[in-house]
C-alpha cells in the first residue's frame, strides 16, 4: 500500500480545519439576514460548492483536450477525478439551493433558467459515468469520455451566466442584481467575509479530495493492469 505524501496529509488536516472555520464564520460571524432569517446562512456553502464545482467542470474540459492531444491515460484519470468531486459538490449546491428556496420562494423547486441549467449540468455528468461504465476498452473509454466531457464543459458557463442572460427569479448576489429576483439581499461586510472564507475553504477541500481521488484512480489502474497480467 502506497503511503500518503506528507503534503497531502497536511492538506487533509487543513481542509478539515478550514471546513470548521468556514462553518463558524457562516453560523456565528455572519449577521442574520433581516428578512429571510437564518436560512440565508446556507448561501455561504451554496456559493462555495457552486464555485468549485463549476470551475471543476471547466477544468475537466481542459483535461479532455490534453488527453485527446497526448493520448496519455493519466489525463483520463485526472479527468474522472475532477468530474466526480465536482459532481458531489454540485449536488450539495443544488440541495442547498432547494432548501433555501422553500422559505424564500415557497417551493422546493421551480423550472427557472438557473435551476434548470444546474439540473441539466448535474445530469450531464451523471450520464458521463454511465457512458464510461458501458465501454470496456480503456483507450476507447477515455476517448469517448474526453469528447463527452469537452462538450459537457459548455454547460458550466451556461449555468453560471443563466441568471445574467435570462429572466429569472434567482438572485444575482455578486456583480449586480435583477428586478425579477426574489430573495435577493445586500451583502454586509460580515457576510462578504464569510463568503470569501467559504470560497477559500471549499477550494482547499476540493483540491484535497481531488488529490485523494487521483490516488484512488492510480490504484484502480494498477489493479486493472495486474488483473490483465495475471489472467493472461
Amino acid at each position, binding site marked *: *500500500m502506497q503511503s500518503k505524501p506528507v503534503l497531502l496529509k497536511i492538506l487533509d488536516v487543513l481542509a478539515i480545519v478550514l*471546513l470548521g472555520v468556514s*462553518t463558524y464564520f457562516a*453560523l456565528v460571524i455572519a449577521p*442574520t*439576514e*433581516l*428578512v*429571510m*432569517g*437564518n*436560512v*440565508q*446562512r*446556507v448561501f455561504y*456553502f451554496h456559493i462555495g*460548492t457552486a464555485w468549485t464545482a463549476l470551475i471543476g467542470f471547466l477544468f475537466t474540459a481542459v483535461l479532455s483536450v490534453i488527453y485527446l492531444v497526448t493520448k496519455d491515460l493519466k489525463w483520463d484519470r485526472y479527468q474522472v477525478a475532477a468530474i466526480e*468531486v465536482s459532481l*458531489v459538490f454540485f*449536488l*450539495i449546491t443544488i*440541495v*442547498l439551493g432547494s*432548501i*433555501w428556496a*422553500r*422559505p*424564500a420562494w415557497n417551493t422546493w423547486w421551480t423550472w427557472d433558467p438557473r435551476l434548470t441549467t444546474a439540473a441539466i449540468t448535474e445530469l450531464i455528468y451523471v450520464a458521463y459515468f454511465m457512458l464510461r461504465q458501458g465501454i470496456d476498452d480503456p483507450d476507447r473509454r477515455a476517448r469517448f469520455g474526453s469528447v463527452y466531457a469537452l462538450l459537457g464543459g459548455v454547460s458550466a458557463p451556461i449555468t453560471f451566466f443563466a441568471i445574467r442572460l435570462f429572466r429569472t427569479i434567482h438572485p444575482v448576489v455578486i456583480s449586480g442584481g435583477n428586478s425579477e429576483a426574489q430573495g435577493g439581499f445586500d451583502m454586509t461586510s460580515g457576510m462578504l467575509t464569510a463568503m470569501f472564507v467559504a470560497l477559500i475553504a471549499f477550494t482547499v*477541500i476540493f483540491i484535497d*479530495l481531488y488529490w*485523494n*481521488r487521483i*490516488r*484512488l484512480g492510480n*490504484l*484502480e489502474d*494498477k*489493479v486493472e493492469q*495486474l*488483473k490483465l*497480467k*495475471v489472467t493472461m
Partner: protein
Amino acid sequence: MFLQDTPANTDGYMIAGYVISFIVMALYVASIYVRSRNLNRDLTLLEEMDKPVAPVETSQPKPKKTAKPVTKRSGKK
C-alpha cells in the same frame, strides 16, 4: 415572509442544509476510503498470484529415521 418586521424563523431549514452538506461530504470521503481499502486488498491478492511459483521438488523426501522408543527397564530386578 417578506412583509414582516422581524426575520422569519427559518432555523430548521438552515440546520437541514448544513446537516445534509456534512452528510454528503462524509459519505463521499467514506466512499473514497472504502474503495481504496478494497483496491489495496485486491492488489495484495493479485501480487501474490503474480509471484513466480517455486519449483516443485520431484524426488521423494527421505523418510526420517524414527528413533526407537526408549523404554526404561525398571531398575528393580
